[in-house]
């Protein structure tokens, strides 16, 4: 089973280390709408976990429950042995970077960043030192005396980050903090956030609907769909071995092959290959980049490779690669990703390795 809620061995390589945060059977319903059903998840020290999902999947609600802005209907959250969900938000050692930054407009950047420290009644000079340190970390020292209304979105985002981190929380929650930025700035911030997390060593729980963003930044991805965890794994694992059809299609592109397994042979239309699966119907995910063009004439399918022939129906130019829509001889339509080439032939010979046809199960229907 590819689904695992236990953190994979992250950085330290010490399997026996206790997780930082344990979420057990959290459920939440708004009115008649069950937004979260039975969520269980663990978060390790120093890991970058992304909660990925479409709008309505419940990802923001889950984050807000961890932060303390909503209370779950059932279940518990334990941080370092203590029940976190029994504490009000202002007592949790958890800080949030809000989607629209939520900077206090009547305070300067400095005062914003020092807000949490002042609330904790820290001595003034210590506050000043920590604030200066935090501002330097996000490279916003020059704007210390400005008001939030006067700085750009990207700059506000850094301040929001500094304001949260300066309190040295055990856990940092980020609610789609990059969604308001334009594409280039977004890519830049992804890199900066990731390196910041490494530098600071705090666990980050990052919420987004952008699967590319999730893959770039995370140590692990928790894919949430309609209130339940579809799969929790590292980006590579979740990409190479998706557990369900939803996962396979949500993260990256894929071809879904429906077929039958009989006596160790899977067949989908005219394609067949060896598998170690029980008899019955089966579903396979085959990534477009794993279908290769064969230049040296049609070959025979054998143990290690499946050959077939098709015609190009449609071509989409993506810069370095092209996505070809192929109709096979038996009518099956497949997407193939390959390096860009001028003057393609309409007729193509293709192949893929049986190992790349990953068995997946159907995602459960949900009311």
């Amino acid at each position, binding site marked *: 089973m590819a689904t695992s809620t236990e953190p994979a061995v992250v950085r330290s390589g010490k399997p026996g280390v206790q997780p930082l945060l344990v979420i057990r059977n959290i459920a939440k319903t708004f009115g008649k709408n069950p937004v979260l059903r039975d969520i269980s998840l663990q978060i390790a020290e120093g890991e970058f976990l992304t909660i990925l999902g479409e709008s309505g999947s419940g990802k923001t609600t889950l984050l807000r429950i961890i*932060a*303390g*802005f909503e209370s779950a209907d059932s279940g518990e959250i334990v941080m370092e042995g203590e029940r976190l969900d029994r504490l*009000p*938000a*202002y*007592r949790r050692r*958890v*800080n*949030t970077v*809000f*989607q*629209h930054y*939520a*900077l*206090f*407009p*009547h305070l300067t950047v400095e005062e914003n960043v020092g*807000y*949490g420290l002042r*609330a*904790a009644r820290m001595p003034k000079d210590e506050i000043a030192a920590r604030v200066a340190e935090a501002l330097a970390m996000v490279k916003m020292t020059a704007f210390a005396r400005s*008001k939030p*209304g006067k700085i750009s979105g990207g700059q506000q985002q850094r301040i929001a980050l500094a*304001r*949260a981190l300066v*309190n040295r929380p055990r856990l940092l929650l980020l609610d789609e903090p990059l969604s308001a930025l334009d594409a280039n700035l977004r890519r830049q911030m992804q890199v900066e956030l990731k390196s910041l997390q490494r530098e600071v060593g705090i666990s980050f729980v990052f919420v987004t609907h952008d699967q590319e963003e999730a893959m770039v930044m995370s140590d692990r991805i928790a894919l949430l769909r309609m209130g339940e965890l579809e799969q929790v794994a590292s980006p590579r694992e979740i990409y190479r071995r998706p557990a369900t059809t939803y996962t396979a299609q949500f993260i990256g592109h894929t071809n879904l092959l429906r077929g039958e397994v009989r006596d160790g042979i899977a067949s989908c239309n005219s394609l067949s290959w060896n598998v170690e699966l029980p008899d019955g119907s089966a579903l396979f995910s085959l990534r477009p980049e794993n279908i290769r063009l064969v230049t040296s004439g049609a070959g025979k399918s054998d143990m290690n490779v499946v050959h077939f022939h098709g015609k190009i129906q449609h071509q989409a130019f993506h810069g370095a690669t092209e996505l070809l829509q192929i109709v096979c001889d038996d009518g099956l339509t497949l997407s193939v990703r390959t390096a860009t080439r001028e003057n393609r032939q309409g007729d193509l010979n293709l192949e893929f390795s049986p190992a790349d046809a990953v068995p997946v199960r159907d995602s459960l229907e949900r009311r």
Partner: protein
Amino acid sequence: MFSRAYRAAITLPPLLWVAVFLLVPYALLFCYSFWSVSPSQAIVHAWTLDNYRELFRVNVYLQTLFRSMWIAARVMIFSLLLGYPLAYYLSFYAGARKDLFYQLVIIPLWVSYLVRAYAWKTILGSDGVLNTLLQYVHLTKHPLEFLLYSPFAVVLTLTHIYTPFAVLPIYAALEHIPRNLVEASHDLGASPLQTFWRVIFPLSIPGVLAGATFAFVLSLGDFLAPLLLGGPSGIMISNIVVSLFGAAYNWPLGAAISLCMLLLVVSLLVLSEKLEKKWSFR
């Protein structure tokens, strides 16, 4: 996009009307304050500073003005004390019933001043509802005289009338505060009380200033409540003006007092606006 003719058509009639019925009257107010009245009750259009000298020479005018300001100040303070928590409740706690409660606030706002002042008159009198109620339940033996025909009655009635005026701008300001700021404050470790003083209240100050200004300015110029409920000790500056335009027949002097009141009110409005801008963060 709009032609000159269009813009002239929408601009000129209002400008004209406002000039004739607002500017000119204010100008006349100004002029009258420098004129005088003859023994035969005709207005003498000769320029003089006599009215203003009179104002400062005779004590009663300044005394009444200060008493009026003190009454207005109390109305302002009580309106804020009553109104702010109500506005806060409406904005942060009312939830599904917010709409209903908002209507409950604006209804007294627009219902006749006279009706409400009259209601208090029937309640506060020595044979009024309150006194007879207190006697009925044996809390008092004799009617409490200070309830009516006193500054107390005026302050009470005006507070009743102007509290909704204070609630609305405060409510509007509170509604404008993005809720994620409150969450951010909690997230950073500030308790609800700290959050109120450090985030919510500062951001609501423009509303508080507006409400306070309304309550103060409108109370200051009020003459109806003192006439109905004030008695001799509750006379306010506007009552003096009214009598100068009535029985005491000295329009120019009345105009002079009115002009002073107008200047006072306008400077308060300007000051309030400046402060509101300073405290507004948009």
